[in-house]
């Protein structure tokens, strides 16, 4: 099955051939590399930008104002922090002119920990992204979602921040993307750029990809359960799913919701689940103080207080200035499988 890098490549191919994408650009996005995570190999509208994130965001903004459709990449989300003012201007542009100008663009960037990214290459962006009104924010955890939501992001008339977890980029999916070949090796032969000299003049042999997309704003229940509602996304989503399976054996029934879209998020899905389970936990790997999970917990508390059998919980990253390179440090700084299991077990065990 395709991995997230291949899924994005296929979605961008559909974008530039059928959905009007004019530019896919950023640092090392064009040939020969096709992106440090290979997510932009083999495309025709890619180009390498100067090493200047402000120029990347600014130019994407200008292209959108001129009626183009750009997909710009920030190589790692960790390099986005010198552009926050520009991101805010993109987000407030339509509001500022009372709807006169639209700013359709996609900003794609890999997020999070799990690749030994050390002090400054392990950032989550949930808090900042959800605190910049005017942006839609997607954060995927599977290749199928990456494909379907990138298609929707490209079609959206608003600026969309497309986040995907560094740790999951190379993991093959378990659901087939419509049109993708049965055999993963075949897919690789057809769309992965060859290494070395063979890359010269190489062009991919794209599979037939039928129209398919996943709507922005729809969560996905990746584990059904009745005792606890776990709302998560990104790197921690598959971990929570595994934990739910494990706990099922212990007779603890956990419902895991992969939010997939942070703005606008699927509140109905959360309400329905919490009304059933009466227990809520938000899990993500951003640092825990002023964390998007706290927003979800606050809203659950305000609106569903009398439905709850236990205090809503948030499991997130330790509130430290960075993540340590040594695994002995990273391991305890962001939630791992065991931490998630423990948190779910504890929450299920509380009896009010």
């Amino acid at each position, binding site marked *: 099955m395709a991995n997230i890098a291949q899924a994005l490549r296929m979605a961008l191919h559909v974008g530039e051939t059928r959905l009007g994408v004019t530019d896919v650009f950023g640092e090392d996005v064009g040939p020969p590399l096709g992106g440090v995570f290979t997510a932009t190999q083999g495309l025709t509208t890619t180009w390498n930008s100067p090493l200047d994130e402000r120029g990347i965001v600014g130019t994407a903004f*200008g292209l959108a104002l001129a009626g*183009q459709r750009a997909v710009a990449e920030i190589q790692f989300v960790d390099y986005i922090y010198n552009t926050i003012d520009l991101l805010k201007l993109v987000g407030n542009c339509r509001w500022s002119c009372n709807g006169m100008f639209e700013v359709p663009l996609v900003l794609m960037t890999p997020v999070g920990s799990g690749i030994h990214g050390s002090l400054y290459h392990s950032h989550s962006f949930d808090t900042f992204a959800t605190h910049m009104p005017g942006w839609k924010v997607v954060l995927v955890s599977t290749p199928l979602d990456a494909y379907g939501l990138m298609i929707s992001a490209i079609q959206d008339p608003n600026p969309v921040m497309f986040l995907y977890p560094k740790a999951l980029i190379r993991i093959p999916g378990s659901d087939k993307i419509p049109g993708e070949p049965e055999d993963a090796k075949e897919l690789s032969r057809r769309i992965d750029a060859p290494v070395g000299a063979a890359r010269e003049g190489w062009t991919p042999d794209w599979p037939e990809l039928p129209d398919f997309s996943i709507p922005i704003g729809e969560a996905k229940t990746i584990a059904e359960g009745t005792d606890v509602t776990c709302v998560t996304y990104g790197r921690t989503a598959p971990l929570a799913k595994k934990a739910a399976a494990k706990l099922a054996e212990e007779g603890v029934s956990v419902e895991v919701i992969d939010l997939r879209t942070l703005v606008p998020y699927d509140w109905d899905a959360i309400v329905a689940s919490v009304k059933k389970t009466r227990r809520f936990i938000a899990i993500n790997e951003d640092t825990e103080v002023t964390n998007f999970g706290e927003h979800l917990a606050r809203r659950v508390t305000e609106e569903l207080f009398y439905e709850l059998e236990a205090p809503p919980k948030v499991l997130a990253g330790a509130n430290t200035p960075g993540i340590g390179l040594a695994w002995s440090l990273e391991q305890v700084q962001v939630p791992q499988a065991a931490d998630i299991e423990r948190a779910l077990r504890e929450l299920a065990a509380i009896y009010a």
Partner: protein
Amino acid sequence: MVKSRALEERLIAMTRSSDGFFWIGGPGEEAFNVPLGLLVNKGEGLDHDFLHLHYRSSAILTAMGMPMIDAIRQMASKATDPHTGGRNFINHFAMKAWNVVPGTSTIETQYAVAPGTALAQKRHGGHGITIVNGGDAGSAEGDFATCLNWSSRPGRELPLLIIVVNNKYGISTPFDQVHGDQFIARRGEAFGIRWDVLNGNDPVESHQKLSEIIAYIREERMPFVLEAYTSRLHGHSSSSGAARVHDEPDCVKDYGEKLVAEGIFTADDIAQLEKKYRDEGLAALEQARSEPDPDPSTIHDHTFA
């Protein structure tokens, strides 16, 4: 020039008659901005010029034909403000029909955005260009360098007029105190970008040099950095009182006197012109006053399409 001066003076007066909160604008830049506005190929889309302006650019739009009353509606933050619906400051204009992208309050960010519209025009072909302007102090922000670099990539040069209006001040800070460069525009040289400076208080020199430079950009599809020296006739903004300063040349007065001296106008012609636009400003204010404020229920409108 007379009209846009009259507009700015009306806007300033509105801060005193509490018809508006905050004023910032461009009196003293008319001799440069009016010729520039007259040379703009105005319209919507890639075949026309894109404008990334700052808060002293009203004379450009007045010269292009923006009605006085629209600025006055913005100053009064009325729902009828066609640029922002009463949401943003005065001289923060947005006009899709003329490719005037929404004005922002953040100094210099427009220089990081302008390469985007210019890139679309370069690809599109034709003669449309992008024009970006801002001040001297703002050129200290990295975005000015971003603009130079992104508009001069080899084989990918952009049809972009990069303007710096140098009035020798950033709020209270004199240019010479914080800038070691004799000519800001010369920074283009290392990037292989042509550059020039001109006296922005002289409408004739401004028009002549602007015509040549804009023709070059339209035809050659190459960037150009232009530095224009102008006055700042009412200080920085209403925060610093917006009092008229008298130790800097007044291009409108000087040019008027020149035209009279040359016998092209009589002093009376000019007085009448001034009165005409003063009256237009007053009438517009009366009209704007009668118009509705933005409806509180609309605060979430236009966040998303």
